[in-house]
């Protein structure tokens, strides 16, 4: 199985971070088992790794964010993070007010403020590689991408899924389907059932807390004899939820995203917009747990190696760093 590539170690010493205070502005609770939980995990990992002192505020409405960040700035925090695109204006404003402090925004796009690091994931690699895998292992020639809601980045990933299949000359049909909610496992289950009725046998699953519903639907069909069904999980490796058919899939690793950003800061790199991809080890494929034919797995690994050496081997894989 492929191991996620190790993050590149930066040249500059990291000692500068030790003892610094870092605070985060979050839109929801840290136990949402998703978006904010990831941020929370990133914070605690950074604390353990660099000896940071950390703090966070949950349920911050956009219009209050500036004030919350100012409060942290005034309380002596040197690194202030806003988790989410919605805080763009607020963090830009406060970053200008406190030029000596460092500001991090996930999913941001602002590039012109020297102490503001807007960071995101490179979009496209995941869709392309997982699309390749899905179409390759599908026996029925039908693959479904089950998504919570329609966002630009997600749509682009879906586009890349289809692109990969087409590029490989695979005749698989890719269904792009939306639950209409990130928090509705019941409906996700029904959507999955409907997809299975259509003969779909591989599902790329990106429905957040709806994921459990899709897994449940496949579990039932699997128990009824459809043992060739596979789910490719997304955002995190969810193999442990159903080891018999859930592949590790694709990870977008917030902890590594933050870590990479902290390293930029420690290295004295000026702010700007950064999108981390496969090369930086921030997004990566997970193990397949023997759920795909061995030859497919080794072909995948080979392609991955080749791509890391020379991205031009996939001319139609256009990585976007602006979404």
């Amino acid at each position, binding site marked *: 199985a492929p191991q996620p590539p190790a993050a590149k170690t930066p040249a500059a010493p990291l000692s500068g971070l030790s003892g610094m205070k870092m605070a985060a502005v979050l839109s929801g*609770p*840290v*136990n*949402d*088992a998703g978006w904010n*939980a990831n941020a*929370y995990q990133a914070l605690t990992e950074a604390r353990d790794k660099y000896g940071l002192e950390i703090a966070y505020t949950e349920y911050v409405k956009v219009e209050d964010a500036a004030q919350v960040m100012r409060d942290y700035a005034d309380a002596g925090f040197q690194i202030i993070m806003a988790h989410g695109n919605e805080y763009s204006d607020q963090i830009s404003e406060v970053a200008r007010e406190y030029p000596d402090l460092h500001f991090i925004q996930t999913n941001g796009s602002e590039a012109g403020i020297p102490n503001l690091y807007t960071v995101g994931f490179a979009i496209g690699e995941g869709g392309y590689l997982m699309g390749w895998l899905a179409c390759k292992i599908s026996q029925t020639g039908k693959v*479904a991408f089950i998504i919570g809601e*329609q966002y630009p980045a997600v749509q682009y990933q879906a586009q890349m899924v289809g692109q990969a299949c087409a590029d490989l000359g695979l005749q698989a*049909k890719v*269904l792009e*389907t*939306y639950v*209409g*909610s990130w*928090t*509705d*496992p*019941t*409906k996700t*289950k*029904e*959507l999955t*059932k*409907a*997809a299975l*009725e*259509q003969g*779909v046998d591989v599902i790329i699953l990106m429905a957040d*807390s*709806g*994921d*459990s*519903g899709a897994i*449940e639907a496949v579990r039932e069909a699997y128990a009824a004899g459809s043992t060739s069904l596979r789910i490719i999980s997304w955002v995190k490796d*969810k193999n*442990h*939820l159903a080891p018999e058919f859930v592949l590790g899939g694709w990870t977008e690793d917030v902890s590594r995203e933050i870590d990479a950003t902290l390293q930029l800061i420690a290295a004295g790199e000026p702010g700007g917009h950064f999108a981390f991809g496969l090369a930086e080890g921030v997004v990566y494929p997970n193990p397949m747990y023997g759920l795909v034919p061995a030859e497919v797995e080794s072909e995948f690994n080979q392609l991955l190696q080749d791509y890391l050496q020379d991205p031009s081997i996939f001319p139609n894989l256009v990585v976007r760093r602006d979404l």
Partner: protein
Amino acid sequence: MLNDLLSIFASPEFYQAVLRMATPLLLAAMGGLVAERAGLVTFSMEGMMLMGAVGGVIGSHLTGSVWGGLLLAVIFGMLAGLTYAVMAVSIGAHQIVTCVALNMGAMGLTSVLFGLVFGGGSGAVVQDVIQVASLSPWKIPLLGEIPILGPIFFNHIPLVYLAFLTVPAVWFLLYRTTWGLKIRAVGEHPHAADALGISVVRVRYLTLLFAGAFAGLAGAFLSIGVLNTWQENMTSGRGFIAYTAIVFGKWQPLGVLLGALLFGLADALQLRVQTMNIAIPYQAMVAFPYVVTLLALILFSGKASWPAASGQAFKREGK
């Protein structure tokens, strides 16, 4: 495209899905209907269902049995109903606002409860998806074997049967028992009922407990019926749809059944249209149930048919 649509309507799985998706709506709506007929606005079913959903998972986890889960779901739902009753019946608070507060409160409370039980203590972050025992289908012996109809109607988890059985049961309760008569009297004219020695307060408490119990079952259907886990806010609006089904059905059991089926159908259809790659934008499909609601409001409005004392606090005068 027309062929694709027709093929949806030709498949038994579609009708099975319709029944499945109508079930939580029907359970909640039948419970709510009884309280509505006693003059209570049951816009709170979303919160009550959520309580039932978390109760189901916790009960199933603690007792190791899905029946324990159902029991706790009913208890949690009834506790939510009780809270409503204390606020709206005893204290006389504004019903709609009480419902809103209850729904919001349930969202927070269920998270905390879940964290307490599965996170090993207060506020702890639950890192993993929890799995518990869940209901499996009961195939009805002979009926289940009938071709086509068998799988559609007679191979479901027990709560599905229960949901559909509540329709005649609630009808009987409302129109053929003295309890039902009292409920209707309290909903239409609480002062007249009071003058005849009917305890408006008791009737309203009891109907809210009933509504809570059924909303709890509806929630359990989601958490340990369809799934075997719990997710924050997993009812995602089904309580509101159930409420709408009551209005759609003009406060009559059969009408409510029709409403629940219609919403179930709209949803099942919507999902299938997506998987058939039929060229209808998904936003339009997601909006479909609401369009149906609006149409229903327009078509079936006319003379107000809701219980005359709906939403009104009852207080005896001049003591």
